[in-house]
């Protein structure tokens, strides 16, 4: 299923509800639903944050195939930002040296099973897959 969302943090509830509708209908358990919601938010907010000069909507596609959930987020008229190449975060640093920057993409890389990025003609597309069990 596909839906478009306004480029705004206030879209997060609608994105959550859209995903829940599909995941619940396919009897996807909480162990997969939580990381799927988290990955979707981290990618969506990353798109909103790092492309402030465009007001194009962000497309979200969700496909359930057996135990695997695949989500694609697409945005147009943006610069390239390869989320698979995000710099690593030192999660072992002491409190005084910790900063929140980069945690979202760090989490993303830890909670999904597959992560792909594609950029062509100013269209940015991120695809992730999460499998149960």
């Amino acid at each position, binding site marked *: 299923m596909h839906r478009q969302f306004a480029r705004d*943090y*206030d879209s*997060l*509830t609608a994105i*959550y509800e859209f995903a829940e509708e599909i995941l619940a209908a396919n009897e996807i358990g*909480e162990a997969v639903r*939580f*990381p799927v*919601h*988290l990955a979707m*938010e*981290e990618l969506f*907010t990353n798109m909103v944050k790092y492309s402030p000069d465009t007001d194009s909507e962000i497309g979200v596609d969700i496909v359930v195939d057996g135990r695997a959930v695949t989500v694609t987020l697409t945005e147009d008229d943006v610069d390239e930002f390869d989320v698979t190449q995000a710099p690593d975060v030192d*999660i*072992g*640093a*002491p*409190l*005084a040296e*910790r*900063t*929140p920057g980069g*945690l*979202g993409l*760090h*989490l993303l890389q*830890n*909670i999904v099973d597959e992560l792909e990025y594609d950029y062509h003609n100013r269209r940015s597309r991120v695809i992730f897959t999460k499998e149960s069990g």
Partner: protein
Amino acid sequence: MFEIDYGDDGEVMCSGRLDASQCAKAQSFMDEIADTRTLDFSGLEYISSAGLGILLKTQKRLAESGAALKITNVNNHIYDVFRYSGFNAIFDIKAKE
């Protein structure tokens, strides 16, 4: 929906979903905390990096005066998020029993 308020014993009760759209509400509450305080996450279902950023910012501010946030009743999914983020080394965290 995200809710945050003081409980009967002075702990901070958090519930709902702490995502990027709820950060202003969470941040304004956390900014008023000035001493060591326990956050009760028994009603919190979800947290993203936006919420982690608020916790981290508050912990760093409190550490300057020797105070700290403690977090209790954390569900398994949020506990995993803390673990992936290294927060289990910089916060006193207790999982939900």
